[in-house]
């Protein structure tokens, strides 16, 4: 039987439109950045729109643009300037080492202030912008738009297109979602009963609170030097990538009715092994540099293989020996960090190897690499699980192991594959983590990742007792956790104290998701639907 896939057309179209919107947005951001770089001032949003939305001829645009630049230069440091600076440096900073809560923010602030004073001295010494431009015989307008009106018009279109593209894209995605609902014959009551809905509602509520508390929370800026978009939203997705990747495997483990506590330790092992291969012997290559002792392919593959093997060990204990998963994986959780420390001799290696840096700090398609890796991993796992019978096997083993064995499913094999996959995914997360800090940290790498991954899966609607699971829900869960953390960092509260807020918000989410509350809500929704006399 062929399934109807009508929803795919609007969905793809919507995604393409949103992608185009991002592209134009990046263009406009790049313009702002060019202006900033050449004139050490940035055009505030108001003056940009003043220039581009007015229906002027070329001379008019030139005059208005130059006037805007001149006006901005006069009141340096412009407010917009400092904003852009702090935003950029915050972005850069968070792309660097693991944030230390308040510390990070303070650092970011100091860096921003430092750069600002630098910019000021620059401007006073060389008279900058206008002076430079005058020397080369070009005014601001010609420097920024070498192709004249053609460039201006393209920016104008971009400016006009962004909201349209985003709006239309979002609308089409909504239409696709409605089509899915229609095709699957979901009614409002069952949607209200779905845990994913509640997870999504919780995420939206948190984002709204973020927006109210900090209106600039949704700002996104573009930096040409790294070719990346920066902003809190991007940062949230970027930072959640390790947990998302691990949680994909963890969801399957939970669906089997098990728990994998060893993922955090595997993250440490993977990072330690990769750094070991990059540096090998600290006594010979005693300075970190842009080199790798072993081929880069080996640096990537060997840690992943190790993690797969360790995952298989877990799978062997749980599948063949039928041990309780919590205890079986506790073994590697305890001894895994010991292995990582023996690999690195208890030392912390650092490296400056460029290809390795790309894994965690590089960019592709305007986005940080971890996001791209996450998207690929998530897509691969989803296809593997949902387009083959594997997902059903996992669910059936999770619901009743002996019954699934009687119906011809090799439960041991399924368990082995799931744990090996989780190990592999932890290995990827470990590479990303160690690439972010360009070093290995056997004690703190992947600390508490197991609880975060389990939380992400459970918030996303996976049943801890085994059976039903939802990979899409897990992604939302992972993003919720990261949103909370990012949000709390904005208040400058210490990383450890974040846990209290995490606990409060998770408590709200799990109460909303709990069976009695969901049943009550869906009953109400059903009653209302019946009163209105229709579906939806």
């Amino acid at each position, binding site marked *: 039987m062929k399934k109807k896939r009508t929803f795919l057309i609007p969905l793809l179209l919507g995604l393409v439109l949103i992608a185009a919107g991002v592209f134009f947005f990046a263009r406009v951001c790049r313009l702002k950045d060019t202006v900033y770089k050449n004139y050490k001032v940035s055009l505030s949003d108001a003056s940009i729109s003043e220039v581009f939305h007015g229906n002027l001829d070329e001379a008019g645009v030139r005059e208005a643009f130059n006037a805007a630049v001149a006006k901005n230069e006069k009141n340096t440091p412009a407010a917009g300037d400092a904003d852009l600076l702090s935003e950029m440096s915050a972005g850069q900073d968070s792309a660097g080492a693991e944030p230390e809560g308040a510390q990070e923010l303070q650092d970011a602030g100091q860096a921003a202030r430092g750069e600002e004073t630098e910019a000021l001295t620059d401007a006073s010494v060389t008279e900058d912008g206008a002076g430079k431009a005058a020397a080369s015989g070009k005014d601001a307008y010609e420097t920024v738009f070498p192709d004249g009106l053609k460039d201006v018009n393209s920016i104008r279109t971009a400016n006009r297109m962004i909201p349209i593209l985003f709006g239309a894209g979002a609308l089409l995605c909504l239409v696709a979602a409605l089509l899915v609902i229609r095709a699957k014959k979901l009614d409002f009551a069952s949607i209200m009963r779905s845990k994913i809905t509640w997870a999504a509602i919780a995420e939206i509520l948190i984002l709204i609170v973020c927006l109210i508390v900090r209106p600039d929370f949704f700002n996104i800026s573009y930096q040409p030097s790294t070719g990346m978009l920066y902003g809190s939203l991007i940062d949230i997705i970027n930072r959640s990538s390790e947990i998302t990747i691990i949680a994909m495997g963890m969801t399957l483990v939970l669906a089997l009715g098990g*728990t994998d*506590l060893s993922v955090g330790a595997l993250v440490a092992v993977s990072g330690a092994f990769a750094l070991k291969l990059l540096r090998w012997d600290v006594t010979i290559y005693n300075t970190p540099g842009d080199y790798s002792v072993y081929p880069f392919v080996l640096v990537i593959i060997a840690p992943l293989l190790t993690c797969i093997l360790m995952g298989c060990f877990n799978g062997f*204990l749980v599948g063949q*020996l*039928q*041990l*309780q998963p*919590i*205890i*079986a994986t*506790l*073994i*590697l*959780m*305890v*001894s*895994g*960090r*010991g*292995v990582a*420390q*023996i690999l690195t001799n*208890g030392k912390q290696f650092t490296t400056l190897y460029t290809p390795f840096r790309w894994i965690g700090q590089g960019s592709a398609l305007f986005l940080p690499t971890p996001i791209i890796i996450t998207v690929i991993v998530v897509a691969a796992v989803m296809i593997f699980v949902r387009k083959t019978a594997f997902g059903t096997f996992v669910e059936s083993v999770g619901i009743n192991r002996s019954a699934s064995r009687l119906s011809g499913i090799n439960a041991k094999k399924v368990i082995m594959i799931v744990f090996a996959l989780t190990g592999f995914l932890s290995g990827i997360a470990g590479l990303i983590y160690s690439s972010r800090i360009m070093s290995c940290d056997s004690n703190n790498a992947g600390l508490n990742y197991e*609880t975060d991954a*389990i*939380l992400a899966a*459970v918030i996303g609607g996976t049943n*801890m*007792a085994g059976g039903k699971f939802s990979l899409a829900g897990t992604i939302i869960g992972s993003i919720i956790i990261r949103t909370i953390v990012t949000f709390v960092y904005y208040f400058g509260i*210490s990383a*450890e*104290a*974040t*846990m*209290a*807020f*995490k*606990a*409060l918000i*998770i*408590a709200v989410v*799990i*109460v909303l998701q*709990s*069976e*009695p*509350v969901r049943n009550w809500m869906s009953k109400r929704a059903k009653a209302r639907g019946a009163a209105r006399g229709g579906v939806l």
Partner: protein
Amino acid sequence: MREKHAGSTQTLLSRIMNPKYVMVYATVIIFLIIYIYGAIRYGSIGFTTLRTFVNFFTDNAYYGISAVGMTMVLITGGIDLSVASVQSLTGMLIAYGYTKLGISPVYTMLLSILIGVGLGILMGSAIHYLNVPPFITTLTGNFLARGVCSLISRESISIDHPLINELAGFKITLYHLVDGQWEKIKPITSISLPVLIFILMIILGTILMQHTRFGRNVYAVGGNEQSAKLMGLPVARTKIAVYAINGFCSALAGIAYVLVVKSGWNMALQGGELEVISCAVIGGTLLTGGVGYMIGTMFGVLLKSVIPALITFNGHLNSWWGKIATGALLLLFIVIQKAVVSYTDKKKA
């Protein structure tokens, strides 16, 4: 009366060899094997002294106190991940309360026990009435306690209060009879307050679990909650009470920990909850519920201390080998336990 009747139908041997005790026997036997190995290997350098043996209790007394409550929670089929954070919070409350605010530790101790019990009741209610998995509920409790602890203070605070000093210094020195005279055992062996609390809690726990109606309810709920409910047992009350008792044990363990380290730190005992759980599990408690004994838990705690003791006596192994050895022994233990159980199961069939 009823128990006497049951006893008359069984011989003593068959009662002792009851398969439900097999896990406990396995724990005891493995502890004895490791202890005898240590005695042969390091007997000459003092492994066999009474002092070393008492130190097995002293080293992990606070984990042991907490493990008593944890065993009950595990027997109901639940799990509690918040114990270590509650211990840390207790330490922080006592330390911050006295050193920064000048409140007597007596009040902060009472307060922390109240907090432990309150958090336990809250989590138990959420688990029972809202049907949230215990793992997630108590993980949230863990985050909450740890977070509040960090909100209070992020640095280690030392305590210098006469009461705490006195309690921490409290020791019962052991004597033995030599030629009709009481002399101190050499090397001087003494039992500290945390060890006393630990042993007392084990005894109380055993009485509570084996000789009261409440204990039988706990086993029934863990064996099959649905049946227990249909039998008319107070499932809700039992489950919530178990989490409350566990909260009490955690707070008590926190006080014992304060007596050992005399300070409060927000990151103290990180990951301790898994130590506590593994103590109970090594002691033969099943995570699926319904099976477990306090005496097994006690031997689980002893096993946890005997492994680092062996590494210390060896003297050549690096500290990070300790982690791997602990993992390996955990593995060995679980596999042997599994083998024993499946053997007896086969024999029974």
